């Protein structure tokens, strides 16, 4: 698995006539600043929408309990979306968690995968920007960032600031697969901002919830 170089990334962005092969990242506000010569990554900027948890009203999060609509509502009830425009800032307090997004919108070709990585300049202030770091081949949308301040002091975050980078790798074995095959049933296709979690739609939920019942029955049988 090798990292795709800046030169190749630029070719994939601007000189690839085949739409299937093309990497889309829009808008790149400062091309030379965001794809620097010799580096194997594209710097990404912090977007303008954020989701915060209303902790004072939250006893716990159980994404699997209740009816489907209730579950989604339950999650939204405890999360609040706010918009911080360019030129403004938001303060992330120590241990505080927020969901954000990249300013840029991505569409990865089927032969590239990405990994979200923080910039060390921010990391040294205690900022973590991503927990689910994998960006799958064919992903289409704004990349969600999970922001957390692990430091001791509040950190001011500015939309538009270069907050992290995406490192790209070659993904093999996807020949013969179409974009539409990947998009069917995908939860976050075409996301234009940080989104609420849709974990409650996970197909395995039903099975997981039946575990305890079947586990008890299996235990009785084994005894």
């Amino acid at each position: 698995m090798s990292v795709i170089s800046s030169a190749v990334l630029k070719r994939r962005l601007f000189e690839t006539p085949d739409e299937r092969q093309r990497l889309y990242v829009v808008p790149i506000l400062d091309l030379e600043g965001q794809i620097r010569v010799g580096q194997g990554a594209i710097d990404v900027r912090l977007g303008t929408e954020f989701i915060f948890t209303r902790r004072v009203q939250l006893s716990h999060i159980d994404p699997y309990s209740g009816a489907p609509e209730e579950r989604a509502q339950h999650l939204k009830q405890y999360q609040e979306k706010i918009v911080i425009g360019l030129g403004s800032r938001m303060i992330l307090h120590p241990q505080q968690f927020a969901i954000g997004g990249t300013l840029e919108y991505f569409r990865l070709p089927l032969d590239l995968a990405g990994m979200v990585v923080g910039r060390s300049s921010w990391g040294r202030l205690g900022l973590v920007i991503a927990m689910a770091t994998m960006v799958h081949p064919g992903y289409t949308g704004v990349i969600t960032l999970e922001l957390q301040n692990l430091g001791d002091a509040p950190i001011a975050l500015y939309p538009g600031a270069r907050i992290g980078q995406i490192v790209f790798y070659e993904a093999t074995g996807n020949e013969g697969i179409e974009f539409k095959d990947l998009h069917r049933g995908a939860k976050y296709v075409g996301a234009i901002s940080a989104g609420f979690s849709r974990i409650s739609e996970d197909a395995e939920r039903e099975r997981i919830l039946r575990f305890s019942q079947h586990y008890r029955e299996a235990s009785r049988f084994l005894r």
Partner: protein
Amino acid sequence: MTIGEEFGNELLVNLSRRAESLQQSLDEISADTPYPSEARTALLRILRDLTIAVIRRLEELRIGPPPPEFATIEAPAKRLGVVLNVLFRLMESLVHSDVQRIPSALVPAFEAIARQFVPDALVLVQYLWHYNFGYENLSKVFRDWQTSGLPLAQPLPASLIVLGFPMSEKDNVLLQCAFAHELGHFITQSEALENTVRVTINPGLHQAIPGETRPQLFDVILRWYREMFSDAFGLHLLGPAYFLALAEIGLQGLATPGAKHPPPYFRLTWMLELMRRLRYLDMRGNSGELTSTGRLDPVMKEHFEAWGRFLATSPAPRLSAFYHCAIEAVKEALSNIRAEVDGIVQDKGYTAERFAVEVGPLVKRILQLVPPVDGDGVPNPSFVSILNAGWVVKSTRLNDLEATVTAVDLEEKREVLRILNGLVYKAIEYRLVRQVWARAGEAMS
């Protein structure tokens, strides 16, 4: 005896509380503004000044003797009443305006269009709880304010337009083309065109319907004129996107015959005819059949030809004789209206040639599920081209988009519309971000 004692302190306490809650609301609004329009910023500043002034005045009234200008009891109460009414009227405009989750990136774009005609125009977008599109000029509120006698630290905006839009359609970016119609009303008012119309249309009407003497016919047509002018104005500014947005609104039955709006059938017929005159479409021989001039791609051509067939063969017979008669009369006046709009829009409108060059690549990009805006080194597409590309996809290529995301059932197809709106909105937002970024760079150098 203080004013408080005379009126009862309860009244003053209530007024004071209202003023304080107003201040609190202002703080909340200003904290959640993604891309504040100049109109919002101006209003917030003025409202804050005035709120502080009111609170101070109330405090004076409560604790000390009445100031000398309060010679009578009625005067201060009336004055405070007016000021508070103005405050709450402005608050109402602000509270439902471009705040949170609403595509406020559209506001600067429409403001830029308005400023082509009125250089100091400020635009505020207000969302309505009922299904309606509207236009309001806040100048009356400002006049009330001036009569209140309280001095202001901030100057009043000269032209502040509040454009109303149904809250239920707040995510429907494409339908916001209707703003151009409301801007048309603003321009009509600014240019005081209606008197000209009375002079130019009336003789034409009498000529078109010889012997017709009913005054209400002419009143109806003059009422329609305002709408027709705004439709022509919108079409000049936004091209086919305007027609398609109005068709969608009209098909939902918003406009009814007899109201101030002409029947949707007539509006669409007239706009289609105007599109022909703007060279988006052409007429084949004398058959009345519309065809493409090559500025629309084959699928769009087919789409508009279908509109032409639909309008040529349907609802006119269902309209009452009165309206049929009115339509015939107004057709005679179309050239006048067109000439007036042409005179106002001159070189500021969107052209068929521009559509032919710019929209195709943007459509192609949307079908790739990518917002049609690039970055560093590539010129920004125009706002109107983005809207048109969105409408082209919605009207003629939605099947392709559905195939891209393999939308099969109804819910998945609704999701495709959400994605389309998102892509168009994101393109408009990115366009704005690029402008802000470039201006910041220029300021540094």
